[in-house]
């Protein structure tokens, strides 16, 4: 099903290009016929068709339609609109030059537009590459810390089997386990990003019941974190929201983990889903210490001031998790926000549109 939906825009484009070509050429022909009444001479016919060919080359994709228009235009002008009428004749003085000019102009314009489009695409690719490289650098930096601890702790036990009491060994192994868990979460976030960029034209959305996704996220979260307790509130109405459920589950888990790790003193996390107009609104709030105001601005950017970055424990750096959240939500056409609650604690919200936007997908 999906496959077929995918191919149709491309075919539509081809049909659109063909229609455009025919339209422009006929417009030129009609114009010529109208002008013929005012001026029966044919000096401007060639120029008129060059203009038509230039338009076709500019507005269609690739070389094909531009070349097609120029050849067709040359034949048409020669056969119909210039003396001798209704026959092909390339031998009269000046004619071959006119027609060669038309062909050359169309080829050049097609080549130029195609090249510009290609350059544009290349520029976009480079930008994506740069973004990916930056992300990779940040990730590798963050990944090194837990890896060092894992290698160090296990080597300590392996090399000195008798030097530690069972309690000490257990403590070391707990650290190893915690670091490995952190790595798993990091990799899951990375996979989410590749999942977005792998899908051509955005993500694969399906209508899902919001409560199912929330329940699943909370269940997975509670397996990893015993504290704080999570309470969930969903409306009586079943909210069916178009989404990639795996990705939205990832967003919710990141928000829950963010609350668990950063909200010092939190005793409970509250997940709430409700409907506001055409949007489904998800919020994750805690009763912890809140978010420092200077961080609120750049919370989802994935960047921290260098001074902070150096000083902060990398394990506590959820910058990447939250920026992944924003990337996923944005890919769904939703928005993300964060605020401190008046009664204390932080609240992170995101919205998702309840209706699929067909035309957005067609453009992509």
């Amino acid at each position, binding site marked *: 099903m999906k496959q077929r939906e995918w191919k149709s825009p491309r075919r539509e484009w081809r049909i659109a290009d063909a229609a455009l070509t025919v339209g422009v050429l006929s417009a030129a022909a009609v114009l010529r016929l109208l002008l013929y009444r005012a001026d029966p001479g044919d000096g401007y016919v060639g120029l008129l068709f060059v203009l038509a060919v230039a338009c076709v080359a500019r507005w269609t994709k690739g070389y094909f339609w531009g070349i097609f228009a120029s050849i067709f235009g040359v034949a048409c002008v020669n056969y119909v609109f210039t003396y001798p009428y209704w026959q092909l004749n390339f031998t009269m003085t000046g004619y071959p030059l006119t027609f060669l000019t038309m062909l050359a102009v169309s080829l050049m314009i097609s080549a130029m537009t195609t090249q510009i489009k290609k350059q544009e695409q290349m520029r976009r690719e480079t930008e994506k590459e740069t973004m990916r490289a930056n992300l990779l650098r940040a990730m590798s930096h963050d990944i090194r810390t837990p890896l060092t601890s894992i290698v160090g702790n296990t080597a300590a036990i392996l090399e000195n089997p008798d030097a530690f009491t069972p309690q000490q060994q257990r403590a070391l192994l707990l650290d190893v386990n915690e670091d490995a868990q952190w790595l*798993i979460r990091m990799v899951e976030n990375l996979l989410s990003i590749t999942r977005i960029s792998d899908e051509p034209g955005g993500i694969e959305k399906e209508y899902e019941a919001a*409560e199912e996704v929330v*329940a*699943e996220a909370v269940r997975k979260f509670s397996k990893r974190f015993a504290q704080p307790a999570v309470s*969930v509130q*969903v409306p009586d109405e079943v909210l069916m929201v178009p989404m990639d459920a795996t990705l939205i*589950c990832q967003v919710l888990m990141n928000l829950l983990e963010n609350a668990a790790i950063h909200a010092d003193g939190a005793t409970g996390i509250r997940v709430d889903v409700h409907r506001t107009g055409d949007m489904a609104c998800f919020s994750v709030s805690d009763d912890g210490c809140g978010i420092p105001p200077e961080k609120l601005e750049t919370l989802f950017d994935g960047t921290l001031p260098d001074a902070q970055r150096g000083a902060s424990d990398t394990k506590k750096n959820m910058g990447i998790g939250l920026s992944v959240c924003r990337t996923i939500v944005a890919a769904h056409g939703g928005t993300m926000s964060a605020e401190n609650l008046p009664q204390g604690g932080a609240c992170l919200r995101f919205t998702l549109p309840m209706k699929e936007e067909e035309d957005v997908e067609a453009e992509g």
Partner: protein
Amino acid sequence: MKLKDKVLIVEDEQSIGNFMSTVLEANGFDTLRAATGAQARSLITSHCPDLIILDLGLPDMDGLEILREVRAWSSLPVIVVSARTHEHDKVRALDMGADDYVEKPFGTSELLARIRTAIRHTRTSVGNADLAQTGKYRIGALTIDYDKHHVLVDGEDTHLTLNEYKIVALLGKYAGKVLTYDYLIREIWGPMAKADNQILRVNMANIRRKIEKNPAAPQYIFTEIGVGYRMLGTE
């Protein structure tokens, strides 16, 4: 002495195979190891294991190929181990007859629970599938009464509609096991039903509102995103 169940571990990563066989042996299973599809084939026919843990990414062939061969002659339980790539792979494995799947990275308790569920299911329901549809299934405060076609919570009738009852009954019959959306739709609405998840989702939402205290924090029926539903097993 209790006879030990024999588990064949088909996994090409040495370290993961080691970890699985250590854990399983510590928990009262006998284990066999195969690192390639060809090895797995010969071990399956020569040793007749009680359960197979099958990694899908094998060096010499697609793990699904082994699953297909096994399913051609036997219903011996197979648990598929998959790296998280896409839900489609899991659904495909389940639809091809895998009993369950675990996703890498997985914990030991999860793996053991899945193995026990899979072995128990082949012992109880295969061969006498009709028998499993009578009697009662109790888990927590929930009771599915297969004779009277009722689902009770705390002894109170939950007033499920016929289709809702069918869904719950089916999940209860395979409690602990994930049932794919397509499987449920085929079983409830017949093979001609459109492969549309919507109607199943809506029925499920209604069921949750009738049997769960909080539909967003279910105790009995869980969603496996992109795959299907699973009812809480007796462990």
